[in-house]
């Protein structure tokens, strides 16, 4: 449990948010040409990093907007928050 600084609403309790998993997984541009291995990679395989990870979050019980977060999963410390479409901060 921690506080999240929503880029639209400001600091709110984590309960208001929904975690959306790993960020920057690009949707295949040509889905019809994807092999089974590439589909598995896109749909299922995850980095699941212990340490600094890039994630998507949704302010589900607030503005309902999606945004990105850089978070250390070993101690739940939030390193950075940035809007969808913005460039991820350099690590």
């Amino acid at each position, binding site marked *: *449990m921690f506080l999240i600084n929503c880029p639209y609403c400001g600091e709110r309790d984590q309960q208001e948010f929904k975690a959306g998993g790993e960020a920057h997984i690009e949707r295949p541009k040509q889905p019809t040409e994807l092999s089974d291995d590439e589909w598995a990679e896109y749909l*299922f395989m995850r980095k699941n990093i212990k340490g600094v990870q890039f994630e998507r979050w949704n302010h589900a019980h607030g503005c309902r907007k999606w945004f990105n977060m850089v*978070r250390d999963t070993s101690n739940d410390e939030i390193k950075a928050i940035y809007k969808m479409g913005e460039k991820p901060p350099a690590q």
Partner: protein
Amino acid sequence: MRNKYSVFSLIKNALSYHENWQRAWKDPAPKKEYDAVIVGGGGHGLATAYYLAKKHNMNNIAVVEKGWIGGGNTGRNTTIIRSNYLWDASAGLYDHALKIWEGLSQELNYNVMFSQRGVMNLAHNLQDVRDLKRRTHANRLNGIDAVYLSTEEVKKFCPIINTSPDIRYPVLGGTLQRRAGTARHDAVAWGYARGADAMGVDIIQNCEVKGIKRNGDSVEGIETTKGFIKTKKIGVVAAGHSSVIANMAGLRLPLESKPLQALVSEPVKPIIDTVVMSNAVHAYVSQSDKGELVIGAGTDDYVSYTQKGSHQIVEGTLNAILELYPIFSRMRMLRQWGGIVDICPDASPILSKTSIKGLYFNCGWGTGGFKATPGSGDLFAHTIANDEPHKLNAAFNLNRFVSGDLVDEHGAAAVAH
């Protein structure tokens, strides 16, 4: 020579004030090379080593554990054992484990306190009723004992449940697996450790894996905090940290690691003599032999390795417990903790070879791995020794995420994941 535990050894050791018990396992330094190394000294890892030595004559093997054995999820779960899964593949896997549990204390000469007190799953809405009836039929077709109970039968089996029709989520019925129950989780790790050690397995604690050395498409050994260990076969049984090990080997896994919480109350006199689980309101409760209520909560929805978990998850579970069991309203909770569970997209485990020769993974047990400990160890040992899966774990291969042949227990299982 390993001394046998018996009433006579108890009397003999009582005479010397219990000061001369033989060590249950040694504390060896790692050798330079092993035939196989198991990464992770929890129940599943120790069971794997035990069956490798016992059934496959692989005695020159080691278990490496970064902390102490049984200190991870083996010591953090709510000790529930059952096999009432919906799909055939899962039923085969979990009932294989349940059958081993039934004779495990005798086999290990170590009392794992397996108690077949029954597990009851409650239905709170019409869809639950339909799902639980369907699962009961599926279980019986697979030879797994299961009965469907009416609300009155639920009340009779566990009288402290509030079956009043005017609660928020009324009890409309339930299922009961009488062969299911609980076991002492620490004893399972210790019993397997003692058994494996007696057959020559080295159990190396405080030994963290730092890297996996590959030569092309096969493994050569592991880098650890106690030096390099050469081996041709590595069985990874690292639960929540499976992805960490996989990343060292350059392997991708379909896992997400999340905190799962549990808590226990102050000890009280016997009040609940079975295990009651409710999927819809997410409340599990049983009572330990010490008298504590053992309560399982849910997972957080974000990836975290903190072994903590959020307060509102516990609060939600306790709300549900209090509505179902008003008698517990003044109980005080003693301890709360979290464990990191590795969850697969289909909520079924992976017991599999990988694309790297000599590297095997046993992971993805998510929120319900304890029940499978003996079966998981047995089947994973078979997979490592023969370089081929046993027919009972063939469906739980890593390739199912490529082929699409998932074992979708998400929502089909008796509990929410």
